[in-house]
């Protein structure tokens, strides 16, 4: 199949699924039917050409598959119960009124519903909205295909057995639904970020997938500042991808990255998204994180970074949420803007905070700041603590190399 057709199918898949679920209800059956329709298209379109209205074609075919499926089920039931019933008219013909925008949005809300576990929601979103195959999703998460298939079917089961209907959440629940969607998209991006930071070879690039899905969410909710913020955060983070790891997957910290490798077009797009959302008066945690990423991305050299601006943004972020990781990042920014001593002082309350006191990043930040102030022998034990505590291989390798090179001095 040509790439344009594949692209078109993946673009249409969630719209078609949304439309079929809205009309016929059963999410699991609709998903199977749409999958069959997509397969049919993948076989037929290269031969016969793309139909004039591909979306309607797919809905028609999926509806027919669904009808067949329900007929054969009821036929089986009839055989089993030995009761002959009148031919049931089970599936009404698809209506032609396209409400595609809403359908895709409702589908996204459904797949990311807070009642599902996050791994289930992630898997279902990639499958139903992203149009990835179970095999692709399983290999992206490095789990067996049977495990991923179960995760997806459990998610569908949860939707069926709970009261999650195919309707837009009422306005009072809308922001909760949107934040659940954004969290799932964030986690997908993070998974892709991890894979591209390490040595794991993947068939599917989950970071690009997350950006594609978030872009679609942004088209559906263009006025929502947090949706814009998350999209911008992903784009601005992904822009640094070519520079943030070395040939063996080793971490290259932000201040040592070759900034000429950063994707300039992506940075322009991300910065624009942030400026537009801020101009609309939006404030939210994804948008603020994106704004911070934008400040970094706009600095031509590490020493040009506008640290006072970053300190100010972290200060707003801290007022929005009581997150010790944000406080830790704020301390780093203060150290860069106002001197290491001020940054180190801000670590004291964190060292007593049970949520973060044993986290490797606290030790790593302390080590970095001590090193910056020339206290190498004081920094070493904290680097060692951090290397012992991290559960990330590239991070540990980075810290071990740091220790070795400081010892060599």
């Amino acid at each position, binding site marked *: 199949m040509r790439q344009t057709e594949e692209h078109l199918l993946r673009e249409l898949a969630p719209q078609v699924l949304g439309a079929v679920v809205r009309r016929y209800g059963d999410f699991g059956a609709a998903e199977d039917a749409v999958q069959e329709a997509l397969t049919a298209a993948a076989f037929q379109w290269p031969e016969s050409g793309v139909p004039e209205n591909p979306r309607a074609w797919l809905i028609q075919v999926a509806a027919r598959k669904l009808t067949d499926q329900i007929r054969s089920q009821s036929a089986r039931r009839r055989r089993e119960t030995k009761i002959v019933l009148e031919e049931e008219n089970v599936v009404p013909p698809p209506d032609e009124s396209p409400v595609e925008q809403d359908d895709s949005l409702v589908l996204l809300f459904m797949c990311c519903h807070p009642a599902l*576990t*996050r*791994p*289930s929601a992630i*898997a279902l979103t990639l499958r139903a909205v992203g149009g990835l195959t179970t095999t692709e999703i399983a290999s992206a*998460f*490095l*789990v*067996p295909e*049977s*495990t*991923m298939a*179960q*995760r*997806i079917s*459990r998610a569908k089961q949860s939707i069926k057995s709970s009261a999650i209907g195919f309707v837009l959440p009422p306005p009072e629940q809308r922001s909760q639904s949107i934040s659940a969607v954004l969290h799932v998209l964030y986690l997908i*991006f*993070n998974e892709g*970020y*991890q*894979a591209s*930071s*390490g040595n*794991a070879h993947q068939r599917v690039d989950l970071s690009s997938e997350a950006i594609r899905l978030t872009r679609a969410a942004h088209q559906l909710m263009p006025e929502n500042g947090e949706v814009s913020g998350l999209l911008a*955060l992903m784009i*601005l*983070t992904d822009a640094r991808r070519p520079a943030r790891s070395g040939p063996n997957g080793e*971490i290259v910290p*932000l201040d040592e990255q070759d900034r000429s490798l950063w994707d300039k077009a992506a940075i322009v797009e991300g910065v624009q998204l942030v400026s537009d959302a801020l101009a609309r008066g939006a404030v939210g945690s994804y948008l603020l*994180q*994106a704004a*911070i*990423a934008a400040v*970094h991305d706009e600095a031509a050299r590490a020493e040009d970074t506008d640290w006072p601006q970053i300190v100010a943004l972290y200060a707003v972020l801290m007022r929005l949420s009581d997150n010790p*990781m944000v406080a*830790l*990042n704020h301390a*780093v*920014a203060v150290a860069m803007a106002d001197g290491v001593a001020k940054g180190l002082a801000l670590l004291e309350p964190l060292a007593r905070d049970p949520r973060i006191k044993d986290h490797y990043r606290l030790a790593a930040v302390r080590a970095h700041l001590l090193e910056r102030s020339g206290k190498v022998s004081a920094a070493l034990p904290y680097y060692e603590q951090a290397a012992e505590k*991290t*559960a*990330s*291989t*590239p*991070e*540990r390798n980075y810290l071990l190399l740091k220790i070795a090179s400081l010892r060599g001095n």
Partner: protein
Amino acid sequence: MKFMLMMHAPRGDGEYGVNQWKPEELRAHIQFMKDLNKDLREAGELAGAEGLAPPGQARIVRALADGTPEVTDGPFAEAKEFLVGYWIVDVETAERAYAIAGKASTAPGPGGKPLGIRLEVRQVMSSPDFDCS
């Protein structure tokens, strides 16, 4: 997050000490393990699981100074416990991994009593989360 649950058995009389078990006790034990794996697979949490052949068949391999491998009987004789098998589970929290290990530990032994087998739970190394700082 992925965790490896490593099940350790004490070295006793005979491998696994199971050659003194009654057939129905053995069958109950095997059934328990099969059910556990089925539950984990259906929960979408099972990333891998294998049982290991008895330690009597184990060999220790190491390269000598000239690079040639030396193969000797293993595991180390002084070890009081040996690895009988492992699971890799993909779960949302460490607590969930501990709960699965806790369940595996109750596998039945002689008289149908829970064995209280020791499991070592270790997080599988991953890559760093992204962070805008």
